[in-house]
């Protein structure tokens, strides 16, 4: 079960994929480590570490965050307060509105790197 979509999503290793079908409905908040496919109705906020696709006659009202890609299909609708994505495709015919922010993923820029090499060297020298 190791490799559905190994690289694209999920820092925990598993490429999870969640599907909300045409008759499904979600009210509230959803976070997914992986991909999300919506063709039902969502009132609330969605966040996925992979892709989000709103397809068919899917309707989403609320904030959407996709660490990778968001696709809004031609019959689908996204009325988002806040849309944060790395890549975005909106097909002709789709209903789409909201505040769009695109760019590279944010939660990367603060790794502690600069002083590590020195720390590795100094303890050895002192031991000696």
């Amino acid at each position, binding site marked *: 079960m190791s490799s559905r979509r190994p690289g694209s999503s999920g820092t925990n290793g598993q490429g999870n994929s969640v599907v909300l079908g045409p008759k499904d409905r979600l009210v509230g908040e959803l976070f997914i480590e992986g991909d999300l496919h919506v063709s039902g109705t969502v009132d609330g906020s969605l966040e996925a570490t992979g892709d989000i696709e709103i397809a068919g006659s899917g309707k989403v009202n609320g904030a959407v965050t996709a660490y990778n890609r968001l696709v809004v299909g031609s019959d689908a609708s996204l009325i988002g307060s806040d849309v944060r994505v790395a*890549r*975005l*495709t*909106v097909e*002709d015919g789709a209903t*789409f509105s909201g505040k769009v922010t*695109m*760019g590279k993923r944010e939660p990367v820029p603060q790794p502690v790197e600069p002083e590590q090499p020195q720390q590795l060297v100094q303890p050895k020298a002192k031991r000696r």
Partner: protein
Amino acid sequence: METQEAVAEGTASAENGEVKRDGRKQFSMGPQDIFEGKLIYDGSIHADGKVEGEVRVTGNIDVASGANVRALLEGSNVSLKGAVEGTVTARDKLTLSKNARLSGDIVVRRLQIDDGATLNGHVRMGDVEQQASGQ
């Protein structure tokens, strides 16, 4: 305006696919051209080079891939391939092609964004109010 006439003449080539499709004028710019100011034009514009200011046309706006636009744009169909900074209003459809970069708010009736395009701004969809041009 002498420039208008001059440009309209120079446009008649088949260089741009949409030239005079419905007998309309087209204001056509080349990659070296610079436009600064406010243009209100009964026709379409092919924007290339550098554009700064305000462009309101009754026809279509088409921004070439190498273009650098910092302007308010308003037209029927607006198609972006280059970089645009500013508010964009499309009375019909706005298309962002794969290399387009738009930062600014948009008001459109229909919207198509191709994979690879970059958009930062607020999107409002619905009927565009009767030409919000203060002139």
